[in-house]
């Protein structure tokens, strides 16, 4: 891979006031008249099956469940008068391993969505997110083999099945990252996120963008779910420090930018909580999730992700019965009302939106470093340091150092509260970060040697 200079020269968002929900410098048109990032926040609903084995004998039941979920969700959106709706279908792994299954459900969902569009005029689109199944083989083959070929088959059949956007949660570098994360090994984390992942992102997204271009759908975006959300989940279980999870989030930004360098245009994936950095640097619209995703996972990021979102998502919800309705219906209900509030604030003009943004930010940011690094002013200050650097490794290194600096200043100013144990870890991690060399070639050689016995294949990353 060439260590290319980031194509986004400077920041796409010029001021803190411009980094706000509903507005992105480069809106995206997709599906049936849907525009994202042009002033209105759009609900993005995702749903999944309750515990069930996926097999030929259960397939009719699975199709029935998806039909029921999609129909009920659309009916509720229409009942609430929602003018827009984005639906995400994130396949379950067997549906990517056998791409005909993924395409079949995509087609089923698209058919229902098109009917609702025709009948009720709702502006809508369907996002298909196949799984990155390459790590079904250990160590993974990243660029060849059955798993990769079947992923490509599902990418290629997305448009024909009715999808309007294509996304993925890619996992290149995770083989190293998982272990490094558990050991709070910052150089291992940087090797995964700053060297391996960008190489894989370039390979993967070059293919995805080409397929989307050829088939006429939107190459949307990626997420560091397997990295930063893993860290967030571990931090919430008190397994790793929250400050480490916050640093991993920021360190995952350069990796995610590669998708946009390759031609993806957004919206980024909902679980990419690093999304505000994408909007600030690349100008793409972003999908975010927060309290709305408590049905899928708990997190310390309830309100602040909403402050800069262009789509507001629930991550995923199982099709189980609640007192009021099936859970996917409850989720879309909450999303539509949240979007109404955001869009009403925007109707009050910039001042209204910024006031609501301030409340959304400040209600979370004091209490957790992972929230603090999502404040618009912090995003822009760290993003500015990222874009000064020419390669993903140096960007990752710069992001870490800038984030440590921001967290330290936040504590000193009283805008962020950290426990003594967390402060101790911030100092430990700062010591590690200061040892990261500016010499990328030297760092890479050291890491290749350090991880030579680890369960990954360096040559799969062009090393």
């Amino acid at each position, binding site marked *: 891979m060439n260590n290319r200079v980031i194509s986004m020269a400077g920041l796409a968002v010029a001021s803190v006031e411009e980094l706000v929900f509903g507005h992105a410098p480069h809106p995206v048109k997709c599906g049936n008249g849907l525009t994202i990032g042009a002033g209105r926040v759009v609900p993005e609903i995702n749903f999944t099956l309750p*515990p069930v084995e996926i097999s030929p004998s259960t397939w009719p039941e699975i199709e029935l469940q998806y039909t029921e979920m999609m129909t009920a969700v659309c009916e509720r959106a229409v009942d609430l008068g929602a003018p827009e709706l984005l639906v995400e279908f994130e396949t379950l792994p067997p549906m990517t391993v056998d791409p005909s299954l993924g395409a079949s459900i995509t087609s089923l969902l698209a058919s229902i969505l098109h009917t609702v569009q025709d009948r009720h005029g709702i502006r809508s689109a369907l996002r298909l997110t196949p799984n990155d199944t390459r790590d079904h083989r250990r160590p993974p083959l990243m660029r060849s083999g059955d798993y990769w070929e079947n992923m490509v088959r599902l990418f290629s059949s997305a448009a024909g099945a009715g999808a309007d956007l294509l996304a993925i949660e890619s996992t290149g570098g995770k083989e190293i990252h998982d272990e490094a994360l*558990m050991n709070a090994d910052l150089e291992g984390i940087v090797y995964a996120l700053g060297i391996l992942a960008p190489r894989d992102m370039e390979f993967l997204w070059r293919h995805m963008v080409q397929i989307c271009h050829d088939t006429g759908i939107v190459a949307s975006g990626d997420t560091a779910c397997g990295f930063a959300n893993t860290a967030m*989940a*571990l931090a919430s279980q008190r397994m790793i420090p929250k400050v480490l999870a916050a640093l991993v989030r920021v360190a995952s930004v350069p990796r995610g930018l590669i998708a946009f360098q390759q031609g993806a245009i957004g919206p980024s994936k909902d679980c990419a909580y690093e999304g505000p950095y994408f909007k600030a640097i690349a100008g793409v619209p972003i999908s975010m999730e927060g309290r709305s995703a408590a049905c899928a996972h708990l997190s310390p990021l309830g309100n602040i992700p909403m402050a800069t979102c262009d789509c507001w998502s629930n991550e995923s919800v199982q099709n189980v019965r609640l007192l009021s309705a099936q859970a996917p219906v409850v989720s879309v209900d909450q999303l539509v009302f949240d979007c109404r509030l955001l869009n009403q604030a925007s109707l009050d003009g910039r001042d209204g939106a910024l006031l609501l943004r301030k409340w959304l930010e400040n209600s979370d940011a004091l209490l957790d470093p992972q929230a603090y690094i999502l404040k618009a002013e912090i995003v822009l200050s760290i993003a500015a340091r990222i874009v000064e650097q020419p390669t993903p490794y140096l960007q990752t290194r710069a992001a870490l150092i800038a984030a440590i600096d921001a967290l330290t200043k936040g504590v000193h100013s009283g805008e962020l509260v950290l426990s003594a*144990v967390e402060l101790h*870890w911030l100092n430990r991690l700062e010591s590690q970060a200061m040892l990261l060399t500016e010499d990328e070639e030297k760092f890479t050689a050291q890491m290749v040697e350090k991880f030579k016995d680890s369960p990954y294949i360096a040559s799969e990353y062009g090393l």
Partner: protein
Amino acid sequence: MIDNPLYVAVLDGDARGARSAVEQALAAGADPQDLVSSFMIPAMDEVGKRFDEGEYFVPELLISARAMKSGMELLRPLLAETGAKPVGTVVVGTVRGDLHDIGKNLVASMLEGGGFKVIDLGVDVGPDKFTAAITEHHPDIVAMSALLTTTMPGMKATIDELTRAGIRDTVKVMIGGAPVTKRYAMEIGADAFSESASGAVREAKSLLNA
């Protein structure tokens, strides 16, 4: 706190110090089993306690486990000579169709730190592999992990397979993972459930009355 260099080295995660302390203790005529039971396991218990109280995170826990492992490398051959046995043997694995292994690896490390012998079958482990491993290694416990709701049924399938193979009564079954609940454990006939890695060690010891 125990005022002993081996205990302190394991507690502080000092692998080199732990090895050195073992060497010195053995040279002074210490009993290998006594070193394990009086200093190393109590040190790991203290690490687990500090973890439970929020003073330590997993990285500290893993560093201590590595320090213990470093000392055990010297002690294991001597323990084998004297016929000393681990607290118990546990077969661990993530169930069929599920590739998530952070939690499973953590449980394995914690169990090793707690004095168990661990046989790690990896990820995407089907009922047949669990059954074969139990037949081969005769563990006291089989521990299954799942992160996805769609792979949880693999736990029941494995228990059913153990029953079919006539070996269910020879082994305790423990399960865990984000979507797994105590109620689910009861429903599928598992013997124990834990929602955390440190809890898994406690459950394992409880199952064996250790």
